[in-house]
């Protein structure tokens, strides 16, 4: 079994190029169709940035409880996925999702969510496609919040301790 992993989103770095969407649909359906992507780049109007949105595989995932067909299941990899044979396309999982993450497949109306490219030994497709911007990062489970804290602290350093100032305690 592949190692468990999470995908960390660093929205500030997202340029809205949507390469992740193309890579995801290529990887999962063999076609460069952003509508089939399990990751979606949300554009925030009027001019304010982009956010890649994908299933967070919540610990207490509400979609698992509202699906009338019990088609939302937690895979061994920790990802929460839709069993396509059971899904009837009612979108309950999409409507209860705090991020609106599940994507609706255009051909059959069934929902699909990120499976962390569990079968892929290397980086997930979207992460590989985002190498230039670095808005997506494959991390070990639980690592994402730690890294976010560290990055936020690093960003504050020049503000709290401007260059040339004396080091704390010296």
């Amino acid at each position, binding site marked *: 079994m592949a190692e468990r992993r999470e995908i960390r989103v660093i929205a500030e770095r997202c340029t809205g190029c949507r390469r992740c969407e193309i890579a995801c649909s290529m990887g999962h359906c063999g076609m460069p169709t952003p509508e089939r992507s399990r990751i979606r780049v949300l554009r925030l109007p009027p001019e304010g940035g982009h956010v890649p949105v994908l299933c967070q595989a919540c610990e207490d995932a509400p979609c698992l409880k509202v699906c009338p*067909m019990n088609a939302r299941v937690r895979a061994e990899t920790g990802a929460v996925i839709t069993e396509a044979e059971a899904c009837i396309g009612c*979108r309950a999982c999409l*409507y209860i999702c705090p991020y*609106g993450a599940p994507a609706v497949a255009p051909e059959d109306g069934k929902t699909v969510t990120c499976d962390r490219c569990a079968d892929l030994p290397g980086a997930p497709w979207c992460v590989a496609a985002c190498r230039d911007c670095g808005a997506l990062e494959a991390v070990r489970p639980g690592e994402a919040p730690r890294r976010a804290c560290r990055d936020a602290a690093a960003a504050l350093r020049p503000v709290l301790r401007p260059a040339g100032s004396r080091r704390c305690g010296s």
Partner: protein
Amino acid sequence: MRVLIVGNGIAGGEVAFGLRRAGSGAEITILSAETTPEYDPCSLPYYLGGEVPRERVFRRRWEDYRTAGIRLETGEKAVAIDPASRCVRTASGREHPYDRLVLAHGGSLFVPPIAGIDKRGVHGCKQLPDADRLDRHRGSRAVVIGSGAIGIEAAEALKKRGYAVTVIEVMDWILPALFDPETAGRLKRRLERCGIAALTGEKVLRIEGTEAVAAVVTDRRTIPCDTVVLATGVVPGVELARTAGIDVGRGIRVNERLETSLPGIYACGDCVETVDACTGEDAMFQLKHNALEQARVVTRNLLGASASYPGAWAFARAHFFDTHAVTFGKTTRATQCELGDLEIVEREAGDDYLRVIVKEGVIVGGQAIGRFADAAGLLIGAMWRRESVPALRARRALLGDGPHGTLAWTTRRLGELLGLAG
């Protein structure tokens, strides 16, 4: 410890298997009035409509019970509890002793007092045997009495089976408990576009026919038909508890640990009267996600923890053919007898519609059709967190919608959705 569970539905099954998952060595017995392993009542309309095969409705198989060491007594309807000797008697006369009892027998279909309701061709659509009977039934014209979620889903399923379908609703709009008239009116038009007739504000007087159903007579017309489906709501099963001396209201009354007025007897699922997690008001949301959450609280308490239940969530979707709608929290009607300023935020784009009910600056409910429904989760989150809409408006005005670093994207999306000035 002997744990006896009455009812093999979503809640009962979750308690039994939850105990085993947590490693409990208790002797677990489930008394089921039905004859199958646990199935999901939410799945039944899709089985009936031919979208999934029958085996898909089951949540467990016979061998799951054997492997987990859970005794499933089928065809055993509990009829009496003797709290003094800690024993449950079933209709067959057998007695089942317990140390801890869990009441999870749900509710039953409300059968309205209509003349002719016992005629051949009148069906329920709540349990698997109902769906099986409807599946075997051969007819061409169906009348669905009641337009709640089950009624609409049954109507769609019958339409897909080739029936001519008429839905009759006594209230002035369809899905009256879940949607406001403004939203329901749009849904009704879409229902009619799919070829399902919806008659609102109309009362069924009697069902005619010699032995089998021949027509449904309302206060306005006579509708010839050969099939009638009752979707008139679910009443919580309280008799078993009441006769045992357990405190009951609309449903079985429980404390925040989901224990009834008799120690050692817990209750969860559709038979329980609980509170709305957002408002703290008495609530009876007989929905699957609430049954599951209640069952998990009961499981933890049976395991010796002291878990409390925060209350039930109102969340439901309506889905027929290519129409998708969602509702959460309270409807306008449910807020009308309360004090406080009400603000209704409405958005419309083509066929899509959004309606958010804001009371005293806090989102208390909403409904959405189509594209707007895709972002319902953001609104539900704001409702659960009791986020202040005026504060959101002020923050947006102050910080603007510039690039990252000012407001969380979910907040900005929420502001955009509510049409607050940025």
